[in-house]
């Protein structure tokens, strides 16, 4: 990858205004984190009814205070696990970082 001159190599990027921070068992929704760190994005199908957990007025508090990774929809939980293995501690998932 270090030979890919067309692929940007930045690792220190300012985080999006809402992002999930990954810890051992929980994800925390961070707002305006104002720090530089690499993050991952998830690209996924919403399906007919959309994900079982979305960022709404009801879920906001729970996501901010720590949402158990094992309670996330399976695709989200798997993506968090991939990040942990890659040593990336922030992930942006549209359904959890944008209000719907």
């Amino acid at each position, binding site marked *: *990858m270090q030979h*890919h*001159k*067309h*692929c*940007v190599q*930045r*690792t220190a*990027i*300012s985080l*999006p205004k809402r992002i999930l921070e990954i810890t051992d068992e929980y994800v925390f929704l961070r707002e305006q984190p104002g720090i530089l760190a*690499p*993050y*991952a*994005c*998830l*690209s*996924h*199908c*919403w*399906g*007919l*009814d*959309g*994900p*079982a957990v979305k960022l709404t007025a009801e879920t906001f508090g729970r996501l901010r205070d720590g949402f158990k990774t094992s309670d996330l*929809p*399976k*695709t*989200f*939980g*798997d*993506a968090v696990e*991939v*990040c942990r293995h*890659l040593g*990336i501690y922030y*992930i*942006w998932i*549209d*359904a959890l970082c*944008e209000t719907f």
Partner: protein
Amino acid sequence: MGDIYENSHITIAATASQDSSGGLFSADRAVVRCLLDKHPHLYVRKQPEYFPTRPYNTVPISMPLLTRAWVYQERRLSHRTIHYGKHQVYWECQTDFASEDSREDKTWNKHATHPDTPDDLDWGDKCVDHKIDWQKTVTEYTMLRLTYESDRLLAIAAIVDRMLRLQRVDDVYIAGLWKNSILSDLPWVTTTNKPRPARMAPSWSWASAQSSAVSWASYEFTKEAKVVSLEYTIVGAANLGEVINASIILMVPVLDLTGLVELDPAKIEGPGLRERFEDISKSAPITARFRQNNLKVFSTFFFPDYDLTTANPPLKIGCTIKLLILRGPKGYIGGIVVQKTSKNPPEYKRIGFLNITPTATKPEMLGKNDEDLTRDYDSMEDYRKRRAEGRDSLILSLPMEEVKIV
């Protein structure tokens, strides 16, 4: 939203999952089996589907993510993506594509020049020419599925935003087309039987064609063609391309089809209307015009922009219909078909695209049955040269007219 994917270190794609409950990891690798007792080290694998990297590749059922129009810009803007497929994992970045079994490994062409059509290019290939690059983008994007038709311009706006920042800083994005390349963006082709949606896109924009694949087939206006004026009012952000009061006045060679298309309502059925347009090539005025230039019409194809039985005002006897002439590849002739929708001021709406494939013929052979069209020529090259010459002289013989399209 676009810069979120653009700035991310990596994008994780749940390529095989229908929805967020499917997960990333697949247990379905049982396709690898040891079949021969005598050769326990030999494994046989069922051939997995290919990862689609061209717009006309069929997307395998096992990769639902790749059918979604909204996901298109997520893939295009990400610097690197890991696709979790049903049978294996794929790596995609701005330089390479790689599959776990390395069967599909490739390096994208970073400086593709002058392909015959944009769909000759692979997904990750980048065109030197910004016009072709955009047409390739729209070709790939419009193959994909949108849940809400009203998202047609919205779901590609992040790519436009990037182009406005990096490639086309002095340009204006108008309803899916670019001001600086408007003449080469106009000859898009689609084919659909859906009505035209009530959306703020002018009839000359591909965004006015409902959920149908759009492409460009190397048709171009002649060098004499000019944009006389281009009017529009942008509503909303520059990268959305939403416009109102949009119109374009072109000065182009015109073939008048008024009266040549059978528009008797009693004879018009939905699918039949297409044939009515193709039948013009049998009409005496068209045959005569082709003969004058040592040409015959071999075949005619009409591609409607929408369900023309829903045309407003309706297509009926007495409608003024014109063909705005384009030069096609290989001596073909084509054109944008427009219908006059207002007499005062004279205004037209685009309704479709017509392709005419001519054959060259010598004057003494006219009217004779000619199974082998090339036999009277020294070589295939000679025949093609005559056909292109005939086509060009036919275009030159047509009047140049100012046509305002809304």
